[in-house]
């Protein structure tokens, strides 16, 4: 995945209302008016947020003109997570190697001690 797409995803996630919208959509697809209710926001304002989320690929919209339900798209969030997982692996694997290294040098020291 390109850094640019990741940036778009993160930018879309930078707004608390959009995060709340995603959290709501995690429960199932919903119409704009339904989404607007808990946020004390007009439908056009919600639509604006949905557009940003749609551009980032975080949601998809239905085709029906009247009732265009929005639903969560897992792809970009998974990409974010996959990238972060790499960071974690960097550390876990480094610490595995450190564990091997510490065993090795301690065994070596023990051996040397016995020879004396």
């Amino acid at each position: 995945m390109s850094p640019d797409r990741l940036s778009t995803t993160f930018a879309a996630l930078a707004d608390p209302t959009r995060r709340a919208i995603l959290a709501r959509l995690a429960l199932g697809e919903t119409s704009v008016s339904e989404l607007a209710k808990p946020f004390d926001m007009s439908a056009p304002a919600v639509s604006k947020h949905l557009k940003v989320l749609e551009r980032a690929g975080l949601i998809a919209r239905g085709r029906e003109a009247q009732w265009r339900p929005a639903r969560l798209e897992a792809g970009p969030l998974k990409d974010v997570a996959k990238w972060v997982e790499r960071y974690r692996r960097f550390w876990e694997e480094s610490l595995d190697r450190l564990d091997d290294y510490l065993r090795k040098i301690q065994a070596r020291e023990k051996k040397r001690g016995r020879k004396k």
Partner: protein
Amino acid sequence: MDERNNLQEFVITRVFDAPRDLVWKAFTEPQRMKEWWGPKGATVIKSEMDLRPGGSYHYAMRTPDGATIWGKFVYREITPPSQIVFVSSFSDEAGGVTRHPMAPTWPLQMLSIFSFEEEGEKTRFTVRWSPLNATEEEQVTFAAGHASMQQGWGGTLDKLAAYLAKAAQAA
């Protein structure tokens, strides 16, 4: 004012079957860092350390896929043999601070703390990170990353959504 951003820290901890002095040395002697630092298959090709407050550790590693990653620690506090506080960042050959190669909005600098605690004959090592002077966008990147780092990988999307909901409530 606290320059650290008000977010949960990201923490990894591990217990090593080795005395604390030895674990300390593994992190504070550049030739020892070379022996283990980096993920499986990586080779440390540069390891230069100036262990004092204000000094830095500048490293480079070659990953199995042939990429070279440069990174830097700038030390703030060194308390042998129990704690090291430093600022970590990605870097370049000249030692400058650079962005994460894959994620331009990852915090530029992370306040990092290594701690070393004795547990009988063993040693518990803990590393903690929090973003330093991060912009809002960087904080969100870290928060999204934090959620997935802490929660592992089963059913992550649900958990991430729940986390985001909580973050939205708190905002």
